[in-house]
């Protein structure tokens, strides 16, 4: 994965809460067998009408969404299915970070594997961010992964939690599979021990 150290980018707001992965990428688009062109499926049923025309009132169809790299989402984002397609669609569209008050576990995991930063903020900051975007539609936010801060245009910084391992993954572009492969000897040892049922916790 590509490292992500700092990012200053425009934010688009999608206030719906409990956005499930069936909304992020409807199931009929899961029949693909590669990751190409996933951006076309992002929020497809909200973005396009029955005839396939873009709905102008949907935020991702508006000019301000072009080049935006931060998604400000409602509570409990990414619930439902384990489909990584949801993350691929978001990153293919250009998002590098999503902000919410909480994320579903599998979504957060999938996001990390694809270099999509999930930023959890408290309810008050979350409201302030929505107010900010309502007031200044092309507002930019700055994310500093090392400092774990999100900085608003007025200079106010909001801290966000990030576990040390994920932080290293983002800063150094660590690849989890590489980490696991480097521990192959330990895995073999574990397999030898458990084969005979000798390993006791």
């Amino acid at each position: 994965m590509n490292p992500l150290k700092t990012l200053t980018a425009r934010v688009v707001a999608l206030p719906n809460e409990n956005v499930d992965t069936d909304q992020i990428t409807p199931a009929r688009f899961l029949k693909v067998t590669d990751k190409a062109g996933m951006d076309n499926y992002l929020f497809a049923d909200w973005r396009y009408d029955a005839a396939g025309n873009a709905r102008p009132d949907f935020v991702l169809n508006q000019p301000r969404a072009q080049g935006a790299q931060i998604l400000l989402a409602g509570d409990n984002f990414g619930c439902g299915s384990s489909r990584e397609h949801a993350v691929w669609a978001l990153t293919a569209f250009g998002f590098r970070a999503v902000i919410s008050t909480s994320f579903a576990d599998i979504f957060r995991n999938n996001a990390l594997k694809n270099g999509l930063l999930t930023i959890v903020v408290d309810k008050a900051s979350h409201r302030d961010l929505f107010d900010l975007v309502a007031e200044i539609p092309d507002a930019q936010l700055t994310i500093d992964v090392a400092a774990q801060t999100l900085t608003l245009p007025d200079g106010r910084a909001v801290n966000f939690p990030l576990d040390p391992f994920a932080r290293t993954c983002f800063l150094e572009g660590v690849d989890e599979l590489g980490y696991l492969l480097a521990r192959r000897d330990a895995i073999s040892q574990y397999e030898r021990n458990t084969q005979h049922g000798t390993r006791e916790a």
Partner: protein
Amino acid sequence: MTPRTLFDRIWSRHVVVQEPQSPAVLYVDLHLVHEVTSPQAFQDLCARGLKVRRPDKTFATIDHIVPTDRRGFPIADAQAAEQVRQIETNCRACGVQLFGLDDPRRGIVHVIGPELGLTQPGMTIVCGDSHTATHGAFGALAFGVGTSQVEHVLATQCLLQYKPKTMQVRVDGTLPRGVTAKDLVLALIAQIGIGGGTGSVIEYAGAAIRALSMEARLTICNMTIEAGARAGMIAPDDTTFEYLAGREFAPKGAAWDAALAHWKTLPTDDGATFDETVSLDASALEPMITFGTNPGMGMPIAGRIPDPATISDASQKHALTKALAYMNLQPGQALLGHPIDVAFIGSCTNGRLSDLRAAAAVLKSRHVSPRTRVLVVPGSQQVKRQAEQEGLHEIFRAAGAEWREPGCSLCIAMNGDSLEPGQYCISTSNRNFEGRQGKGGRTFLGSPLTAAASALAGAVADAREFSIADF
């Protein structure tokens, strides 16, 4: 010794490496694979020049995109056919056993794991599918993963995982007649909310859980993910062991005796603590139905839809308002008597033999409403054969229902089975998300009894109003 939980025992037995400030390297005993979430994993694996480390612990099937009408073969949808082709090629190349299109053991991945005896107590089990939680009903630690993690497990048989929190859900009392495991779990999700289990593994305990059959336990653990939890578990007991004995992949002979001795050591000790505990009284439950667009928006079947105006939390108020607009329902409205276009009986939640028996008991010697299309989709080839041996298919057909081939079908609407925009469906599946059963389709989740009773009435109905023989 400090009392320990079932979860804790399984977790600590499977930690290969735990470095400070890092997730654990957790060993996976059983990796289940299906056609939708695996192609990119196999591609990336090949691109890195890696092999499947333990093909003997990896089993694949085809369930999501498979037509449930015999006339659907060969598969006309080019993308679906390509997914079938890829899983066949990948499994052959990697030496992974595939229960393919013509295999008598094929079925929904979470139905066949248990029925083939692959799913066993004490195991760690993963699959690129959120409903992997189902397998926890055997006292296994089973959870869904994304495609990147499918690749990790293929390559290393391990995953990076942080130790989750634990939650105990105690269900005491006795389920009243006509109230099922599905109603129990819908009531739980309505109570704790769809984010109520986030970050946790739930262990279900209490007299009402112990009294459940293995299949009913699978229904409960299956829906655990709808409460946002990582996994659901139920301690193994005689019900579990009796179910497993003699199944194809279950241990045999001396290996069975050794396994049994080990499985009996797994249950949570008295006095073990959980990060959180929730209680439910089974005796007070009623059949449940959902009215909204997430599984937490549920109520007793005779209830009235809540009014967003009475909800103080702004985001919940907004979510309910939006859901009711999508469903075209009004606050205060009752659902009993609401017209139903389609009834779907099937899925990894309620597509097992006991579910079909329950539906058949309601439909027997009756006929479904002319305004309702009824699809009965067995969860696997084996479920289909067993149901046919019992003559259930005759009951369904005589009642005017469609008896179909096994697969996920209308649970996810990827295979051509789909709702029309605006249609209402009473469904025994697990998700009522917008568009889940087809673009613009509207889903009411309920039990097989409720779905069958509603199919007869052509409208949401309470199965307790019908006289039903024992099943």
